[in-house]
């Protein structure tokens, strides 16, 4: 995969009179996991969507190695190299295989790659099941396997363990660890900070539209790769 580094500086975004992001700065590096905290409505999701090229900021620059560029000149690049996973992943109308195959470009050996992704995500038993019939945890695994097939440089995950039981959470965390070990840059936005204690390298907090260091987490959870 691409060993990319992204440096976002001075990201600002307002919705009407409300300035959600003032001057947010954040770096993404290959194999590094950043954990982002922040209160509800602090702009975490907005920041992630901007970083993934899905939303236009009012101002801000991105540097991916060749010097800072205004966002409008690199939104397409961001869309191509940074993948955003919704808190509740959207499943296309079709089975698990179809959803995995969607992430593949034409001409690649789809069958083999889909089989590999099914194995990676522990989804073999439900390969032909309608994706929308899966449970929340299974959907998250499918979304991660789909992202894994896509091979972006970085993944931005919005509350990836929200509303999960302990078993589903452990499996999801194991997959996230696997992604990190494979060299993906990860940015995880979550209220459940302690879930990721064994995973993150940097902890940041978004408050008052700016990003700063976060307080250490009190609780820990051990991640076991299933």
């Amino acid at each position, binding site marked *: 995969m691409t060993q990319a580094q992204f440096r976002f500086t001075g990201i600002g975004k307002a919705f009407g009179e409300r300035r959600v992001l003032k001057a947010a700065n954040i770096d993404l590096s290959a194999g590094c996991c950043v954990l982002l905290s922040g209160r509800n409505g602090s702009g975490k999701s907005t920041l992630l969507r901007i970083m993934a090229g899905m939303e236009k900021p009012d101002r801000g620059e991105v540097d991916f190695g060749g010097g800072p560029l205004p966002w409008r000149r690199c939104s397409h690049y961001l869309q191509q190299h940074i993948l*955003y996973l919704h808190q509740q*992943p*959207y499943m*296309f109308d079709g089975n698990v295989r179809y959803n995995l195959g*969607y*992430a593949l*470009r034409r001409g690649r050996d789809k069958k083999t790659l889909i089989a590999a992704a099914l194995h990676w995500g522990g989804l073999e038993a439900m390969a032909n099941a309608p994706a929308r019939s899966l449970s929340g945890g299974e959907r998250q695994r499918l979304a991660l396997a789909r992202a894994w097939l896509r091979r972006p440089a970085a993944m931005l995950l919005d509350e990836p363990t929200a509303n999960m039981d302990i078993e589903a959470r452990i499996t999801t965390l194991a997959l996230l660890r696997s992604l990190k070990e494979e060299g993906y840059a990860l940015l995880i936005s979550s209220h459940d900070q302690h879930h990721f204690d064994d995973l993150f390298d940097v902890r940041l907090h978004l408050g008052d539209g700016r990003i700063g260091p976060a307080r250490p987490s009190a609780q820990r959870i051990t991640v076991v790769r299933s």
Partner: protein
Amino acid sequence: MQPLTETIANATRLLLDGNPELWGIIAISFRVSLTAMLVATPFAILTAFALAHFEFPGRKLLVTLFSSLLSVPAVVVGLTFYLLLSRQGPLGDWKLLFTQTAMVIGQIALCFPILVAMSHSAFQALDRRAWETARTLGAGPTRALFTLMREIRFGLFAALFAAFGRIIAEVGSSMMLGGNILHYTRNIPTAIALETSRGEFAQGIALGIVLLTLTFSVTALLQHLQQRRMSGQ
């Protein structure tokens, strides 16, 4: 006037015997209406997608306009284009009046608002994450649009069938713009109107049977597809 049973029997015989005049009328109807649908559908879907997906000045006005145009009578559309295409009209030099092209233009004007309004509702109802997921998984705008169309395919089929049902059965616009010329612009509804005014009900009923069969088949097909989807097949 013949008894109704005898008229229906005659109508069925006309259909089954392959009466060339009758089937010629049916062919003209389908040629004109399908051409109108083929021309209108891509633009209508793109318009509906743009109205559902982008914010731009006048968007809400356009949505209201297309919804209002749904109920415009076919004869008013016919009259408008008649005035435009008639010899004294601004487009008179094109010499299109009383041609199949004029009928196609009138039917495009009739089906376009239906296609836009119904497709727009389907796009609007779709989860916005569908577009974002497609894009973040590497789909370009065109592939992402086709993905959305696949997601809302039953809504789009419903729009296509509703629009086709409206134009294949409309008489006002076809009569005014086509002129009801036999073997050229006489289609099913104008033929039914003419034969009924002459007291010749057999051909009118035969053509009515074709329209009813078409409507029934299309509705049954749509229901079958929806049931298959619900049962996850």
